[in-house]
């Protein structure tokens, strides 16, 4: 099968890099942003930054959903973990994120006796609720549009099965409002976007059409293999050169124009857009997904009184906020690599395996 290996061939990479050198010679310096944590890791792992011609800069944007979760939300979750009747379940990355007190994470709380489970899918959290009818199982739902449909399916199933001891704390985020906030910020300086392939698998490529249409910014929906990424970067640089911004879809084996209608219907049935706080960007209207009124009994925010607009308390010295907006590079943070490392992280960009700082640290020699 050729879904991944064929897209890693070095011949294509060499041709793309040669084309890029020519393009950048014509355009001068170009700054492109990826807005997907999985892209951040794929780019770092393949060592693409070191191969790109001088003058072409790749910047990581707010693409790591764990990284954009504000410390105030983690503080509240840590307090919830103190309840003996509660089992918390989430993806491994979120469990490692400290709140406003350094080192205090769900993993630490688990070592102190809190009931915290690592799950790969929200389906496992639902199974936990069925196994433990005497406990409240709270799934910490973090992610973008890729992750939202599965979370919605579990809420639909909890309602259907009458599982009243299951609830979801939705930390889910929507891509478009955050991108708009980023582009409209006064310090925004990016020439084009690598758009997230698996978000687009759900939303459809057309969800990013607003970038060229309203902001005259080139946008290419990209896959995750080196061949995909280099081709997408070439197409962005070529649009910059021609001065003709458009939306292009490089990842056609997975992404269609209209996305996955059943997945979008599940999101629409369960969630409504709501204001959400992003680390680094602040509160953005309609950038979150909250369970609708019909799902209130399964909404952990209502069940356990999650404070609205929970604040983004930042650790002193930590520049995760600026890194998330693409304004500072990881190495420009005074804590990077000295005080803040993956073994003892200060900010979420170093905690999450997909954070810009973790990627920059782990692959720093590439």
């Amino acid at each position, binding site marked *: 099968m050729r879904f991944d290996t064929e897209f890693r061939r070095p011949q294509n990479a060499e041709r793309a890099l040669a084309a890029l050198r020519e393009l950048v010679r014509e355009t001068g310096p170009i700054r492109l942003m990826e807005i997907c944590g999985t892209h951040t890791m794929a780019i770092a792992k393949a060592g693409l930054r070191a191969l790109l011609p001088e003058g072409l800069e790749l910047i990581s944007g707010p693409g790591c959903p764990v990284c954009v979760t504000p410390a105030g939300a983690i503080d509240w979750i840590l307090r919830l973990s103190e309840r003996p009747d509660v089992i918390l379940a989430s993806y491994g990355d979120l469990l490692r994120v400290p709140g406003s007190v350094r080192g205090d994470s769900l993993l630490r709380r688990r070592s102190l006796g809190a009931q915290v489970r690592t799950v790969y899918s929200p389906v496992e959290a639902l199974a936990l609720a069925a196994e433990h009818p005497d406990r409240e199982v709270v799934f910490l739902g973090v992610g973008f549009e890729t992750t939202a449909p599965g979370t919605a399916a579990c809420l639909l199933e909890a309602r259907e099965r009458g599982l009243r001891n299951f609830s979801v704390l939705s930390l889910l985020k929507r891509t478009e409002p955050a991108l708009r906030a980023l582009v409209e910020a006064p310090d925004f300086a990016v020439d084009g976007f690598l758009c997230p392939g698996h978000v687009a698998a759900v939303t459809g490529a057309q969800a990013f059409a607003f970038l060229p249409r309203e902001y005259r910014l080139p946008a290419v929906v990209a896959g995750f293999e080196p061949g995909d990424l280099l*081709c997408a970067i070439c197409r962005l640089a070529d649009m910059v050169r021609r001065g003709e911004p458009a939306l292009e879809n490089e*990842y056609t084996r997975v992404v269609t124009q209209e996305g996955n209608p059943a997945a979008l219907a599940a999101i629409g049935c369960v969630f409504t857009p709501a204001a959400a706080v992003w680390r680094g960007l602040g509160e953005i209207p309609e950038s979150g997904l909250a369970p609708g009124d019909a799902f209130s009994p399964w909404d952990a925010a209502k069940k356990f009184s999650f404070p609205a607009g929970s604040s983004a308390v930042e650790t002193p010295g930590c520049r995760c906020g600026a890194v998330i907006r693409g304004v500072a590079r990881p190495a420009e943070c005074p804590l990077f690599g000295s005080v803040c490392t993956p073994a003892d992280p200060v900010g979420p960009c170093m905690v999450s395996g997909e954070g810009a700082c973790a990627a920059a640290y782990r692959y720093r020699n590439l």
Partner: protein
Amino acid sequence: MCLAVPLKITSIDGKRAVGEAGGLSQTLRVDFLPGLQPGDYVMVHAGFAIQKLTEEQAAENLAAIREALDAL
């Protein structure tokens, strides 16, 4: 977070299916892709299939990348 892996469906029972890659199998949900059959390939994220894959589409994608590079 938005990592997704290609799996080959080996069996389906309603919304639940079993998929396989590299000799390892995994249960997954197929709520969002009606009409899947054993033998189909899907991209799976956090336990849910989000899109169907075909060899033809992969080949077309590869050809499109080569074309795009040729055109530069």
